[in-house]
């Protein structure tokens, strides 16, 4: 309520009312007094003239000859409607009109102003000369018609004042609406801006110059705000993007460093290991040669030799991981047949009840690669996927296609550059991995499986092969949903595409 009183409309109406509360009573009082006085004076003038003329007529008309004529004249004045009281005094004798009560006739007291005595009768005595003596004509005039006229005039004046008041209040309200409605719309628009909707343009259709200027100033503020806001949002977004990129690059670098140091260590270990393994292999071989064919020791030594050969295989796998150098790689215009071969190996390795869906784009490449290693990579990835399925049902999906790395994708994957790649995808809907596990899956000898269920070298060999081919591995996994591993190999640059050096 207090708020409503503070609005422009309420204030303007209040102001009008306040002004009128002071002015209108004064004005009304003045006008009423004026009308009252004029009416009164007119009445008094009128009755004086009437009395004088009546007296003169009586004198000149010879009606003063006897008392009957006098009373007749008095009666005529009352019958004429002008008087309610008529009396004549001559030589101490009072003559009354026969039209009035005796008692009333005695109550004569001259008025000097309108409304005196409160009996609504205005008394006036007019002296006249009859012969040698003075006579007095007493007439009483009815004040009521004049009082009625006064009341009517008062009503008219008050009605006019009231109408005037209503009209001015209505005008004030209309005027205030003219000002306040565009202000209301401005307020509505500003409120929208305040609540975050900067895009709405401020336009208020008003003829009022101040409001026009206010609108244009506010619109200027809004458009400036929109500009600043857009710039800030852009800055924040680019900072966030830069931060994200930096974080990714950092994670990637850390990961690379870790894998490289593991590679270094594995290489060192392998070197020492190989120096031990070599004499074991050779001495065992020599010892076997020296043994008689039927020696009971022979099977044992043969077992030692077989195990030493297996250790040799392991050592070679470790070195595949720690050796990113490019050895002789051949350019294949289409590696689809190589993958077909790999997938037939995979199919032979994995039980027939596991569904493997294969989609290989043709031609796929060109790719400079070591055929055996690419096949080993596919076998390792698929066998890993199969092992993830062991705890539940599901299938494996293998997709190989040519993939265009755009700048956005390259920004997300620091090792990839804009250009064409071969993408190998192996997806399973197996048990999935958490982020801690993903971080470590390429470490040599890291295995999530029970001891004895695999060497834990499979994915580290994959990593070694991918690094050697200057590719990238992207792992996406969700516990309980499955794992998707994407491997990217850059297309081989054909001579015609290569800029001459």
């Amino acid at each position, binding site marked *: 309520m207090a708020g409503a009183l503070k609005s422009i409309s309420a204030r303007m109406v209040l102001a009008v009312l306040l002004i009128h509360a002071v002015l209108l009573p004064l004005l009304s009082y003045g006008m009423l007094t004026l009308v009252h006085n004029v009416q009164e004076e007119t009445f008094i003038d009128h009755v004086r003239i009437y009395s004088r003329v009546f007296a003169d007529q009586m004198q000149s008309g010879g009606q003063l000859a006897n008392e009957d004529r006098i009373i007749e004249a008095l009666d005529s004045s009352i019958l004429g409607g002008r008087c309610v009281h008529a009396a004549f005094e001559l030589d101490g004798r009072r003559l009354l009109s026969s039209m009035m009560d005796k008692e009333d006739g005695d109550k004569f007291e001259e008025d000097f102003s309108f409304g005196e005595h409160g009996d609504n009768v205005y008394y006036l005595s007019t002296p006249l000369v009859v012969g040698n003596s003075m006579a007095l004509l007493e007439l009483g005039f009815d004040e009521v018609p004049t009082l009625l006229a006064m009341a009517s005039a008062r009503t008219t004046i008050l009605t006019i004042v009231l109408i005037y008041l209503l009209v001015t209040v209505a005008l004030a309200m209309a005027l205030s609406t003219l000002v306040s409605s565009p202000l209301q719309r401005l307020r509505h628009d500003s409120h929208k801006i305040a609540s975050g909707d900067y895009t709405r343009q401020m336009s208020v259709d008003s003829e009022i110059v101040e409001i026009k200027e206010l609108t244009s100033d506010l619109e200027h503020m809004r458009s400036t705000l929109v500009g600043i806001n857009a710039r800030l949002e852009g800055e924040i977004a680019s900072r966030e993007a830069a931060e994200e990129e930096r974080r990714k690059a950092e994670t990637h670098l850390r990961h690379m460093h870790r894998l490289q140091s593991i590679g270094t260590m594995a290489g060192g270990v392998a070197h020492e290991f190989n120096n031990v393994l070599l*004499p074991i292999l050779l001495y065992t071989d020599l010892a076997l040669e020296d043994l008689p064919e039927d020696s009971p020791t022979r099977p044992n030594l043969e077992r030692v030799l077989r195990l030493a050969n297996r250790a040799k295989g392991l050592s070679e796998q470790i070195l595949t991981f720690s050796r990113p150098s490019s*050895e002789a790689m051949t350019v294949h215009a289409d590696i689809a047949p190589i993958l077909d071969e790999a997938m037939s190996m995979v199919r032979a390795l994995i039980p027939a009840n596991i569904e493997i869906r294969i989609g290989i784009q043709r031609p796929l490449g060109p790719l400079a690669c070591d055929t055996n290693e690419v096949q080993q990579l596919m076998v390792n990835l698929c066998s890993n996927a199969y092992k993830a399925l062991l705890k539940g049902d599901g299938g494996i999906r293998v997709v190989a296609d040519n993939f265009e790395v755009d700048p956005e994708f390259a920004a997300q994957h620091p090792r990839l550059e804009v250009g064409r790649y071969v993408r190998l995808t192996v997806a399973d809907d197996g048990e999935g991995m958490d982020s801690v596990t993903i971080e470590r899956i390429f470490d040599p000898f890291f295995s999530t499986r029970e001891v004895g269920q695999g060497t834990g070298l499979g994915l580290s060999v994959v990593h070694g092969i991918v690094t050697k081919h200057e590719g990238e591995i992207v792992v996406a996994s969700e516990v309980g949903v499955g794992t998707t591993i994407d491997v990217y190999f850059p297309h081989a640059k054909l001579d015609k595409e290569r800029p001459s050096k």
Partner: protein
Amino acid sequence: MTRVIIIDDEEDIRIVLKEIFVREGFDVAVASDGAEGLNLIRETGADLVITDIIMPGSDGVETAYDIRMEFPKTKIIVMSGGGNTGPLEYEPTAIATNAYLASAEAVGADLTITKPFNRQELIKAVRELTEQ
């Protein structure tokens, strides 16, 4: 009789390689480092030298180079352990090993061979080289 000289700082490897070559009917001598090996060749000559690549003193590459300079007809096989014994660094050490092997070939080694190998592989390679 084909004379073979084996150079390796590991005694176990020297002994077993010697035994193998003796059984194959070669005349065998062993040395524990490059300088010793070179002196042996100067004294008695050699048809084939088989040397480890990473050794204290002069390594396999230097040894291969020295032999090639002095004895152009001697066949040289350089063995690598496949890894590196150097300090842990960010550079994958196999690069160093491969670089070693590549430089060994560059300075004149006839063959590089990665440890561990089995007896048959070694004999096959040696026979191919010596019967050329």
